[in-house]
């Protein structure tokens, strides 16, 4: 070949961009729908855990424009539970049935003429919940005394497996040192800018579903969805739109909604469209797992790590939704990171808690694993008094050891870790950074340096998840493995080339790179190649591994396209050889021609050659007909887990070494990234611009995870980060430019020598920044996100004590609100007491009360409108009086529910006579507020609740002929 790899390796302009830059993208919500298509809105649970006692949906069903309201009862009649990936007697429905288990879980689907009308009807649905205690903390969830989410399990432990590789026990017994870290890795998500979208249509005549969704794969989930919809795979046609607005793993999680909207379409006999809104997305799409890890190392005196002991407790949320618990097993083969460690023990537990179910997210298991491993490496250096650089250097897998088989079964395909590491230190200016740190510290500034080495796996083995099963269970289920990639290269009658792949990109530029790859193979220009990436399971070649995840594109899909182009080329070479009177192996493809090597004048135009099998098949021997070639490629290296639980969990392993310098502001405790260097060996690079884009993009995600982002839950399971004002995605102000360095060691296992690169910084960067912050602060235990308030606890030190004694602090932990206050009533205690027990008085003094119904002497029900400023909603309040000591004290317990949220609280009121014949009312309360307002307005909530409570007592005092309101307002100003 005279023109090998001309286009690959160049940062050519992307074919995708012209449309996207001019507003002509074709995202799911940009595509028209069939006339008569209905729109869905979903009623979601405000509770983390509750029994659904009744759903009253008739007013919603009868509302104008509403076609249907589907509850769990309706949905379960038309579909089956989603398959659950562990051997446990539990189900996973796309909608709540008898119980809700997380805030945001679908409870009912309204299908109506427009989204606006559907949301109006959602507001008309009334649900009676019986709140249950929630379990939020993964370690607490292990306690069998805690509330159980799925009764089939008897506890919340869904899976437990222990593994042993080499002789960890013996190695630990004889180790010079044992170093340990405990990590609580938080929840976060990559939150693509485009949310989920589904348009589903059911054909009753054929009992078949046709769904358009911005799903990203893996298409193993096609089988899960088809089974849930109770149709054979061929009757579940899944298509994707041409453009998808980012995914980072997250758009795997649209699949339960595909089932739900399929059912909605079947129930209404009309196409149904649903576009998730951002509030739905944040509360209930998909999250990365949070994980508690205890990691121990057996270490020689010189810092050489001999053994690791992993203990991981993985929190997958309220359901084990496919493909979980994959997050826990994705990294299983490379649990030793970039290091040569031969002895490993692993204990893996998967627990269920009252949080949103987890799923794919960029890095997928890597952030959790490397946070523990690389925090450990820093602790080893500190505890042994060594330089952290030296500890990494001494433990790296040596150059020349590749392919290297890890203790847990992965084959690290290629690399020269030592060289990449040394190059990064030299080219990245590590020595200068150390100097800078010294200088900064001499000036009293808070400056730290962090380091991370990591191995970035890509091209997942579809069998790795079966490591969660015992070898015996695997034998019964049959082996699973491989990573089928597909690509089709076709020639049209005008000699044009098109490429079809099942890679389902969400902005990565697959079309451009495939054009480069195929152009190189056929001696053409990328502009000559038309690449189609929208997918249609009814027409395209695909398999279970299809889709865009585990950074598989460049290695697997790109490789398959290269092979398919090679097959076409081989056939074309034979046809050309016959025409040019040379042997097929003497034909070369260049400059849009097929020509005889050494005699460029003896040539035929590519387009003419390519059209030959269409126009004159008689002249082309059947076996040489070049029309369309499809390649299915799966690497033989990806074998199922062995009987000893060794698993080559991924085909490719890139190497990353990062270091950074951070400075922390002594006043604000904000972390500023002063310098960030990231070295990547991701094998051969096909498009440097896109590789840089993957790195800077992943880096920004990781920076968010390190410093800003957390899906936060209150202790009662209320969701606290329901808007982009509380879930803090970094902006251009927060993300610095990282220095990117490369080494290129091609993978021997992929057709193009490529490896994945898209997820690496999500694995390496969070812990690199944490190591730097830990270095700056001199602390051993540090968990993400590194919020200023968290850092302040270290940096600001103990708070100076107030000069004047302080009232009891008002705000409590999490969502529990504690408060106390006093009010002066003009009437004597007996009169005030009577008022408290009188529905009429209560109706007058409860803020916004529309009437009180007396159920018994001590049980009242009220309808109230509560609110602060413009934020108002109508609620039902259930009030019980207890511990009555007339006329001195009473305990008031209330539960309030409404569209904006729910609250519950207990208050103790005491009455004391005053000298002037009045009463001093003292009150103390604990309240909890959850639901919609907690998720989207938590910042304002405590104050709002306090205002309502204050209003109640102010009104009570006023009702007894207390002082004028202005005075009372001031009086209570410091109370609640």
């Amino acid at each position: 070949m005279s023109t090998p790899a001309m286009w690959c390796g160049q940062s050519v302009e992307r074919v995708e961009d012209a449309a996207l830059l001019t507003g002509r993208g074709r995202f799911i919500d940009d595509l028209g729908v069939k006339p008569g298509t209905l729109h869905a809105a979903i009623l979601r649970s405000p509770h983390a855990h509750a029994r659904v006692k009744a759903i009253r949906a008739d007013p919603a069903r009868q509302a104008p424009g509403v076609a249907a309201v589907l509850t769990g009862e309706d949905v379960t009649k038309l579909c089956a539970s989603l398959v659950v990936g562990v051997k446990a007697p539990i189900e996973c429905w796309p909608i709540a049935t008898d119980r809700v288990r997380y805030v945001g879980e679908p409870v009912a689907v309204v299908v109506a003429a427009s989204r606006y009308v559907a949301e109006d009807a959602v507001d008309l649905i009334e649900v009676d919940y019986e709140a249950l205690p929630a379990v939020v903390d993964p370690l607490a969830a292990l306690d069998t005394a805690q509330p159980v989410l799925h009764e089939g399990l008897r506890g919340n432990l869904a899976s437990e497996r222990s593994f042993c590789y080499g002789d960890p026990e013996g190695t630990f017994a004889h180790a010079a040192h044992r170093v340990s870290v405990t990590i609580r890795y938080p929840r976060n998500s990559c939150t693509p800018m485009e949310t989920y979208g589904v348009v589903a249509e059911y054909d009753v005549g054929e009992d078949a579903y046709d769904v358009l969704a911005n799903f990203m794969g893996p298409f193993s989930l096609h089988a899960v969805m088809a089974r849930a919809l109770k149709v054979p795979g061929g009757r579940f046609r899944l298509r994707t739109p041409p453009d998808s607005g980012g995914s980072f793993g997250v758009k795997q999680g649209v699949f339960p909604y595909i089932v739900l909207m399929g059912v909605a379409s079947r129930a209404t006999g009309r196409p149904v469209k649903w576009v998730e809104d951002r509030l739905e997305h944040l509360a209930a799409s998909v999250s990365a797992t949070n994980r508690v890890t205890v990691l121990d190392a057996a270490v020689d005196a010189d810092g050489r790590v001999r053994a690791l002991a992993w203990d991981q407790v993985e929190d997958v949320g309220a359901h084990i939704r496919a493909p979980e618990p994959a997050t826990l097993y994705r990294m299983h083969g490379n649990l030793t990171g970039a290091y040569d460690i031969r002895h490993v023990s692993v204990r893996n537990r998967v627990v269920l808690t009252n949080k949103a179910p987890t799923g794919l997210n960029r890095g997928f298991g890597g952030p959790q694993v490397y946070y523990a491993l690389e925090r450990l490496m820093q602790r080893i250096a500190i505890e042994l008094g060594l330089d952290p650089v030296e500890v990494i250097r001494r433990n790296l897998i040596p150059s020349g050891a590749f392919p290297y088989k890890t203790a847990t079964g992965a084959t690290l395909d290629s690399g020269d870790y030592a060289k990449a590491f040394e190059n990064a230190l030299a080219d990245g200016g590590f020595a200068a950074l150390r100097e800078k740190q010294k200088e900064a510290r001499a000036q009293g500034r808070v400056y730290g340096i962090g380091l991370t080495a990591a191995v970035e796996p890509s091209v997942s083995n579809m069998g790795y998840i079966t490591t969660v099963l015992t070898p015996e269970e695997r034998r019964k289920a049959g082996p699973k493995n491989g990573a089928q990639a597909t690509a089709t290269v076709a020639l049209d009658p005008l000699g044009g080339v098109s490429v079809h792949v099942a890679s389902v990109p969400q902005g990565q530029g697959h079309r451009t790179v495939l054009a480069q790859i195929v152009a190189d193979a056929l001696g053409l220009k990328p502009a000559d190649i038309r690449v189609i990436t929208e997918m249609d399971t009814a027409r395209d070649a695909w398999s279970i591994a299809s889709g865009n995840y585990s950074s598989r594109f460049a290695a697997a899909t790109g490789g398959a396209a290269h092979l398919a182009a090679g097959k076409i080329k081989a056939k074309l070479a034979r046809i050309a050889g016959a025409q040019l009177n040379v042997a097929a192996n003497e034909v070369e493809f260049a400059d849009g021609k097929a020509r005889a090597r050494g005699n460029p004048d003896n040539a035929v135009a590519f387009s003419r050659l390519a059209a030959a099998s269409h126009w004159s098949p008689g002249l082309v021997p059947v076996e040489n007909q070049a029309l369309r070639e499809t390649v299915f490629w799966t690497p033989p290296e990806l074998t199922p887990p062995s009987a000893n639980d060794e698993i080559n969990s991924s085909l490719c392993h890139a190497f990353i070494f990062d270091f950074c310098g951070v400075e922390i502001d002594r006043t604000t405790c904000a972390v500023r990234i002063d310098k960030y260097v990231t070295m990547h060996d991701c094998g051969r690079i096909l498009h440097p611009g896109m590789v840089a884009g993957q790195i800077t993009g992943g880096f920004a995600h990781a920076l968010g995870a390190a410093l800003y982002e957390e899906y936060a839950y209150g202790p009662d399971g209320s969701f606290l980060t329901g808007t982009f004002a509380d879930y803090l995605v970094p902006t251009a102000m927060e993300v610095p430019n990282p220095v990117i360095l490369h080494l290129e060691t091609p993978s021997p296992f992929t057709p193009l020598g490529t490896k994945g690169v898209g997820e690496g910084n999500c694995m390496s960067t969070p812990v690199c920044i944490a190591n730097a912050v830990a270095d700056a602060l001199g602390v051993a235990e540090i968990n993400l996100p590194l919020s200023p308030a968290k850092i302040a606890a270290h940096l600001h030190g103990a708070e100076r004590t107030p000069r004047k004694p302080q009232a009891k602090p008002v705000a409590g932990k999490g969502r529990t609100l504690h408060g106390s206050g006093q009010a002066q009533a003009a009437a004597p205690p007996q009169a005030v007491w009577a008022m408290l027990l009188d529905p009429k008085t209560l109706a007058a003094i409860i803020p916004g009360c529309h009437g009180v119904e007396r159920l018994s002497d001590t049980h009242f029900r009220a309808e109230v409108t509560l609110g602060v400023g413009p934020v108002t909603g109508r609620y039902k309040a259930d009030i019980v009086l207890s511990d009555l000591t007339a006329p001195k004290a009473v305990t008031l317990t209330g539960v309030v529910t409404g569209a904006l949220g729910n609250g519950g609280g207990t208050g103790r009121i005491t009455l004391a006579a005053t000298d002037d014949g009045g009463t001093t009312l003292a009150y103390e309360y604990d309240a909890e507020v959850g639901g919609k307002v907690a998720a989207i307005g938590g910042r304002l909530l405590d104050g709002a609740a306090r205002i309502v409570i204050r209003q109640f007592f102010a009104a009570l005092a006023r009702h007894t002929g207390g002082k004028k309101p202005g005075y009372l307002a001031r009086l209570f100003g410091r109370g609640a």
Partner: protein
Amino acid sequence: MKPPNFDYIRAESVAEAHAALAEYGGEARVIAGGQTLVPMLSMRLARPKVLIDIMHLAELKDIAAKGDALRIGAGVRQAEALASRDVAEKAPLLAAALPWVGHAQTRNRGTLCGSVAHADPSAEIPLVLLALGGSVALSSHRKRRSVSAADFFTGMMSTARADDEMIEAIVLPAKRPDTSTAFQEFGRRHGDFAIVACAAVVSPDGITFAVGGVADKPERRDFPALDGSPLDDAIDAFAWELDAREDLHATAPYRRELVRRMGRATIEEARRCLA
């Protein structure tokens, strides 16, 4: 995430706005820039029956410098105030705070009076209004009145505005030549709600120091011309009095410490400008 139904009235005179407010009272909301109200509608947190759009009222669009006061009408957008020479000269504290209000893209629509009406405890404009001892010009079909900022903000998103009243303008005293001002803020990200925002007005005889983001409304204290540890003690006492909020983004002790450190720095900054 779509708004519930409401009627929409495009007022063509202040009297029409008054009439509509008189008719609907608490069921109506005035919409100006809409940068806070529209998302509250979309989230269905707010459910007014009627929206009264006042952005077509030319008489509310002025920034008027009259004597020793600056009057900013309800139709004036934050970006317009930021570009105003009068604001820069007569209310440099406001000019310093405005870049912290949301982002350029929201300041292009959002109004100053809208922010004051909403009374978010972390908002910058109410803080500045309080620090400067400004006032709010309210009007209704019944009467016009002026309420000092200190009396206007009554709590979390709560104000002294009656249901039938609208804010016509805010009025800021013009900067006296013998005073100097400074503004500092810290939020998790630029453009976020303030965790703590500090405003200081210093003169040779004293210090006015105001803090937002900590209590459920902006709060202000006047100190004599203290320095050194007496000043620290005064700020510390104020920090404790603020009854600091705890939330997802900051603990109460952290907020208090920011008040102490950033407060001191803000006062120092104002003093440097005075010198």
